[in-house]
């Protein structure tokens, strides 16, 4: 697939996933990938902690746009800022201050929680309508929260049946349900809990909201060892068995390997094989239970996230897709 077509297929890409799976890092890497194929990118952080900007060597993002790199801008959306902007735009500018000062706004937004989310989604929609970039990548809250975040328009339609907030909710829902304008990219790691959560979140996003799901990004995939059929998650019986109890002694006797080293190699081989097998089983489960294309991103053993390298890997994955 042409990466450019992938990125421009919808204007808004909502990147979602459980905490700790690398969602923010991959959002940034996707942004770099899109910029590298010549697209203008806006990275959006929702009430974030500055992680998105950190990848570009910047401090925390603000409500106003910041240029992060060539063709990449970023901004952080907070509900309070969206609200003030929104009130100003709805003839309530003069009353904004007293409403905020009296705490009325706080009590209402806290007591009708969907409002915060609607304000944020409304802003994303406004950015989309204004065509502020070719690609808008949104780092959504962690998956449990992402679900309630994206479900809020529907909930709010039940609670608030008129007024501008109702209009906002309707408009937000239209954006979320329009496959030509918006899609969700789920991020997971090939581990039991994140995979389970991804499958559940995917179905609920589709069933309960009607969101369009893009490919699943599988992060931290251990490299395949060349001599094994790792796709099935089972060792190829024709391959040499790393559990071979003789191997260790043979290395010491025949190859003159240090005894401690031979033992360490044996242990590492067994450990690595089990982790890889466990991973492949999870990828297999994901594939079987969630019929979506997937993009795999390799494990970084040194723990350093080189965003440029990640972007290239994603582009390679998209081209091969």
């Amino acid at each position, binding site marked *: 697939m042409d990466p450019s077509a992938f990125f421009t297929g919808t204007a808004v890409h909502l990147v979602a996933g*459980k*905490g*700790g799976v690398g969602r923010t890092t991959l959002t940034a890497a996707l942004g770099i990938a899109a910029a590298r194929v010549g697209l203008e990118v806006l990275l959006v952080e929702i009430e974030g*902690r*500055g*992680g998105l900007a950190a990848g570009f060597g910047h401090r*925390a993002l603000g409500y106003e746009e910041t240029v992060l790199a060539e063709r990449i801008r970023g901004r952080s959306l907070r509900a309070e800022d969206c609200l003030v902007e929104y*009130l100003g735009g709805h003839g*309530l500018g003069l*009353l904004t201050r007293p*409403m905020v000062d*009296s*705490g*009325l706004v*706080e*009590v*209402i937004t*806290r*007591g*009708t*929680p*969907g*409002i915060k989310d609607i304000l944020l989604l409304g802003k994303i929609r406004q950015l989309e309508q204004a065509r502020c970039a070719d690609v808008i990548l949104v780092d959504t809250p*962690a*998956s*449990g929260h992402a679900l*309630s975040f994206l479900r*809020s328009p529907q*909930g709010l339609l039940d*609670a*608030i*049946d008129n*007024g501008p*907030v109702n209009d906002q909710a309707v408009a937000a829902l239209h954006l979320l349900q329009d496959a030509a304008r918006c899609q969700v990219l789920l991020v997971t790691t090939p*581990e*039991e*809990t994140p995979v*389970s959560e991804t499958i559940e979140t995917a179905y609920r996003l589709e069933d309960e909201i009607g969101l369009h799901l893009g490919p699943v990004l599988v992060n931290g995939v251990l490299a395949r*060892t060349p001599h094994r059929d790792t796709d099935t998650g089972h060792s190829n019986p024709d391959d*040499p068995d*790393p559990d071979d109890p003789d*191997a260790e002694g*043979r*290395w010491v006797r025949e*190859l003159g*390997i240090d005894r401690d*080293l031979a033992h*360490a*190699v*044996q*242990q*590492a*081989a067994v*450990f*690595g094989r*089990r*982790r890889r097998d*466990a991973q492949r089983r999870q990828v297999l489960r994901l594939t079987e239970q969630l019929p979506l294309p997937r993009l795999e991103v390799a494990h970084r*053993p*040194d723990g350093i996230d080189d965003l440029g390298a990640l972007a290239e890997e994603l582009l390679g994955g998209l081209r091969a897709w």
Partner: protein
Amino acid sequence: MVNERSGRAALAELVTSRSVLVCVGSGGVGKTSMAAALALEAARRGRRTIVVTIDPARRLADALGLERLGGEPLPITELIAASSGLRSGSSPTGSLHALMLDAKATFDDLVTRHATDRAQAERILANRFYHSISTTLSGTQEYMAAEKLGELHTSGRFDLIVVDTPPTRQALDFLDAPGQLARFLDHPAYRLMTGSGSAVSRVAGAAGKRLLRAAARLVGSVALDDAVEFFRAFEGLEAGFLTRALAVRDLLVSAQTGFVVVTSARPEPIAEAGYFLDRLAAQDIPVDAIVANRMTPRFTRLTAAELRRIAAAQDAGGDQVLRTGLAELIELTAAAEAEERALAPLHTGRAIPFQQGPFQQGPFQQVPFQQVPFQQVPLLDHDVHDLGGLEQLRQSAFDD
């Protein structure tokens, strides 16, 4: 250096002596499994234990290999049986329960129990504003967790309650639940809506009405009416809610409660651990242990660089399994080295390079981490999602 030798002993001391253990940390570090493993150890040591998760994602259920945990404590005798060979001297009275917090059900229950009469309870339960705050209001989860904790503690059914918290910065909000509740119920807007309060607020009535009209334009009059109705219906209940919240707060800051910060050895979770350490320190709550979970095991004392030299010197046409194994060993050793570098700030108490959030100016000034017991728990060669995995995790944390 943090005292690594004391880590194991500190965890053992915590599960045997405290009444409440609170596990905090960011997502993906295995916090839920660790909370369950701590609870399992306590049960093995003869204590009546319950592990409570307030995490809406069903991670604990996952960790325990259970399909669904309810809002009522669920006994897991199987787990004790699986964790065979009770310690010598341990009493057979130990038990383990698990509970997944259902915030809405807890809130409903509280309203029903504490309302002055049935009519009041029904008015509140039927209110749409109440429905919103009891299901989705951020902070309700934390607040209801505090209520549930208080209820479990006063019930006397359990010797130890292990609390798993959600993987967000709001996890510690329940420490502040009384304050938040007080702010919410004592809000000028609340008085504005209920029409109660001082003469001053009544004088400001005209301006207040204008504000309410503006708010109605914003959210619709029905929603505003619901809010006003809720606050009126709730009147008289605040005092009880506040009293209980304060009691839980007292329990949490008392010596009966221990705090365990769980992290993995990667920059971002460690930065988050730093946030929790600072936040607890700001409330004068000592951290009783730091657990660095999912550490890549070390199989050799050689460095990755030394191993690479050895690998390069090996005959390329040699043993296939040896070459693969050596590559594996190099990768794992490099990963372990990266993790040690990432953990260094916890050891030295110096600034963490991954700058984010409120401690951008130079974190960790308040906490003398050097004195916090520190326990490394190795990454297992499979994911912890069943009873066997949990038992293995428990062994890695507690057994030599």
